[in-house]
């Protein structure tokens, strides 16, 4: 007895007869762009990309017009533009990452993490000196900023989500607006309070205060989102068991939201780790490690980058790129951590 196997026809699958005009169109676009760039005075990558876009628009529009109608032509033109826009998002980032790695890798060695710049002059080769002081400075400032901003950020998010006090929507609105405060303004504010008002000079605590102001909104908003994801059943279960609100929040809500809250902190760190402008107004800059938060100038990676960029000689510029490279590694590390914890939260839910 012959078996009859039923093959599903899958009518949505693109058939060759439907695809070949598109393939031909793409081929035509590429070939004609190459031809036009070769023949006409248009030249270089810019000329080629412009020609390519124009030819893609013309080809796709005329193909769809011939096969269907004007509306289909409009549709394909817009499709080309949407793809071009997506490419324009990728291109700068790709260029940025490529340049950072290719320029930063030059002076990269293990030695830069063991030395600072206190015994090295700015125009000495990259094999001398290092950026240990800047790395330590950044970690130190970010740690202090986290210590300051985390309680405030979490309390603000608890106020909005759990307590829901009279000003909850107002606080929410202002926290949103606070995330748009220019970083330079935060630096000026700290300078006004800490230096002019209280008479201190440049130090780590001032830098940390400025970064904390920028970090609070990120922490508060992310934590708010996380707390909102906790199902209301948990709150009601806690209250029904006779727990006070304080016990419910401390023993049910916060443990349930733990990984999300960690994500909030790390996102805040990633937001401020590279901030430069407020540090220019508060740190003073140094070439050696300074671990006293209230006394003496200090440095940080963004500051190091900025200083070496401003010095302008070839070795300094290379050092600036090296600093950028290390800074980006740090930011990406925080960023991947945040994503890792964010995903762990999703798995638990």
């Amino acid at each position, binding site marked *: 007895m012959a078996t009859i196997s039923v093959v599903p026809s899958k009518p949505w699958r693109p058939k060759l007869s439907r695809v070949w005009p598109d393939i031909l169109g793409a081929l035509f676009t590429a070939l004609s762009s190459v031809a036009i760039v070769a023949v006409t005075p248009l030249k270089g990558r810019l000329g080629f990309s412009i020609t390519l876009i124009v030819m893609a628009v013309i080809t796709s529009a005329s193909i769809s017009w011939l096969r269907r109608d004007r509306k289909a032509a409009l549709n394909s033109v817009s499709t080309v533009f949407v793809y071009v826009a997506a490419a324009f998002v990728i291109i700068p*980032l790709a*260029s940025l990452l490529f340049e950072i790695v290719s320029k930063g890798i030059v002076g990269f060695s293990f030695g830069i993490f063991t030395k600072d710049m206190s015994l090295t002059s700015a125009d000495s080769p990259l094999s001398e000196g290092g950026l240990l002081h800047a790395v330590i400075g950044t970690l130190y400032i970010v740690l202090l900023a986290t210590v300051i901003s985390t309680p405030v950020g979490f309390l603000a998010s608890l106020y909005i989500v759990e307590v829901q006090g009279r000003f909850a929507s107002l606080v929410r609105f202002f926290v949103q607006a606070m995330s*748009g405060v220019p970083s330079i*303004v*935060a630096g000026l504010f700290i300078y006004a309070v800490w230096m002019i008002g209280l008479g201190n000079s440049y130090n780590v605590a001032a830098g940390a205060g400025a970064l904390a102001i920028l970090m609070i909104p990120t922490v508060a908003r992310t934590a708010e989102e996380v707390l909102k994801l906790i199902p209301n059943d948990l709150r009601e279960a806690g209250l029904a068991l006779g727990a006070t609100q304080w016990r419910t929040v401390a023993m049910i809500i916060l443990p349930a939201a733990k990984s999300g809250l960690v994500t909030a902190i790390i996102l805040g760190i990633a937001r401020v780790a590279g901030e430069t*402008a407020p540090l220019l107004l508060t740190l003073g800059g140094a070439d050696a490690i300074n671990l006293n938060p209230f006394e003496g100038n200090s440095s940080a990676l963004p500051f190091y980058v900025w200083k070496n960029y401003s010095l302008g000689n070839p070795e300094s510029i290379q050092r600036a790129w090296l600093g950028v490279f290390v800074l980006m590694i740090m930011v990406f590390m925080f960023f991947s951590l945040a994503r890792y914890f964010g995903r762990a939260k999703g798995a638990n839910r």
Partner: protein
Amino acid sequence: MPKVLPEPREITTVPRISDRIFRGIVTTGGLSTLAILALIAFFLVFNGFEVIRDEGLRFLTGFDWMDAIPDEGIAATYGIGAMLYGTLVIGLLAIIFGVPIAVGAALFLSYYAPEWIKRPMVVVIDVMAAIPSVVFGLWGYFILMPHAEYWAKLIHKYLGFIPIFDMPAPAYSRSPFIAGLVLAIMIIPIVASISREVFAQTPPDRIQAAYALGATKWAMIKAVVFPYGIGGVIGGAMLGLGRALGETVAVYTVLNLVYDIRIEILLSAGGSVASMIVNKFGEADAIELRALMAAGFVLFVVTLIVNFIANAIINRTARRG
């Protein structure tokens, strides 16, 4: 043996002491964010008060930023008019360059992209948002500027008859055009992610209805997605504008600060309040420092207003969705 019922518990709506303490602490923490904003405004005004009082409205409209020269009897004049104008110019340029690309990318992610490209690209946009501004500054100065100068030359060559593309002198580097390009790249992530959020809230039944009526993808987007999401896109663009107005070091590296109002955007002369503060901060004396505080206050107020409006628009759009 008779059962002894326990005394019924007293039922009260008055919170316990522990709860009252808890609520007190949380409320204090919540309101402290308001306090920080108020303190920022207060301290900047407090320190910049004398300059604002002496200069009056001229502080906003004046073009001169000069320290006093006591020997020649010249009093100090501080005006940020040119810098304010320059800030708005580069902010608008950033919007013009950045928003169409960001919205296009958001459309791509929402309606065009195949699944396998969607996730990496969302990560790419998130990564872009996390890149520090000093990195954009270095990249803009060393990598983008040589290209952008060439583009500017082409624009001037073919569109030079339009006044804003005119060039009185062949100085193409560090122009508002280039600053606008760098800022555009910096605001793309935020505009794109907010646009994507509001596009995601478009009612799916309307989308399917449009397709069922025979609409092409673009016709569907024009008829359904844009009317629903336009508020969010505008809000996102304004949020990006707020970022662009307050951007400091990236602009400082790619913009030549000149205390003059110039309409030519390709010329190496522009202004930015935030960059000016960093520029002047190093060698400022006590009085100039007050002027810088006042400038910071103006910047603070402007960005706060832009952010307020942006958030109000976005919240309204998001709630309706």
